[in-house]
């Protein structure tokens, strides 16, 4: 027996922390972590609403599973890119990686 807004507030905190991290961090790995935080906020919401609506098909949980899968793929690719950038440019600061600016 949990009041729904509690769950939603928690997810809101995670999401805004993630937003702040994405905007304010220079380190690419930290940006990736912040994105993970935002995805987790989404997952909490999915599960909370799934539970709230008493969905027999468990749509919320299944979609959270999909999001986790996609997040894993995204981290895999993201870290591969980060390692590659580090190998070529000796830095993983996103504001110094400006190859595509012009």
């Amino acid at each position: 027996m949990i009041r729904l807004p509690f769950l939603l507030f928690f997810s809101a905190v995670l999401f805004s922390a993630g937003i702040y991290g994405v905007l304010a961090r220079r380190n690419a790995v930290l940006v990736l972590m912040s994105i993970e935080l935002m995805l987790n906020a989404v997952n909490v919401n999915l599960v909370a609403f799934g539970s709230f609506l008493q969905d027999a098909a468990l749509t919320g949980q299944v979609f959270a599973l999909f999001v986790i899968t996609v997040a894993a793929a995204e981290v895999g690719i993201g870290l591969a890119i980060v390692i590659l950038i580090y190998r070529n440019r000796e830095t993983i600061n996103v504001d110094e990686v400006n190859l595509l600016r012009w």
Partner: protein
Amino acid sequence: MSAQEIAFVIIAGAGSLGAIRLVTSKNVVHAALYLVVALASVAAVYLIVAAEFLAWVQVLIYVGAIVVLLLFSLMLTKAPIGRETLDNQQRGMALLVAAGILGGLVFLFQDAFGASSEVNPQVTRTADVGVSLFRDFVLPFEVVSVLLLAALVGAVVIARKDEWAEQTGGGADLGAKGEAERAG
């Protein structure tokens, strides 16, 4: 407040603290460890709303694999320390945006579904999740598996040291590289 709510508040408090410290920490490895706290508390929240399978998926994939990968790459990329190397100049603006979003969301959530709307966790068996996954969501499941395969191949291609290019002293398209490898 029910016992569940008390437990939830404690866990969510720890998780929120972890999330906030994650984005403000001056040390990247500390940040990654705060990420563990945040992710583990999310898993605990899943347990509280009785999504047991999802909770252990969260632990296995996020805490067991993703965080280990993140820590691994942090340690491989020398893990710089300090406010200046980790944050850019948009801190104030970012704080403003984040606070605005938080405020907006809290304002919306507090009454959108009725302040006293309640979640009654029904224990979900793993078999139910499986049935739902393979009966109602087969197509998305297959699409996700294709996505994972693509990500796997992509990650290998990106992170791989280009030995052929190093030997010939220049880059080459992947097709030529594949040909060269097949030839010998």
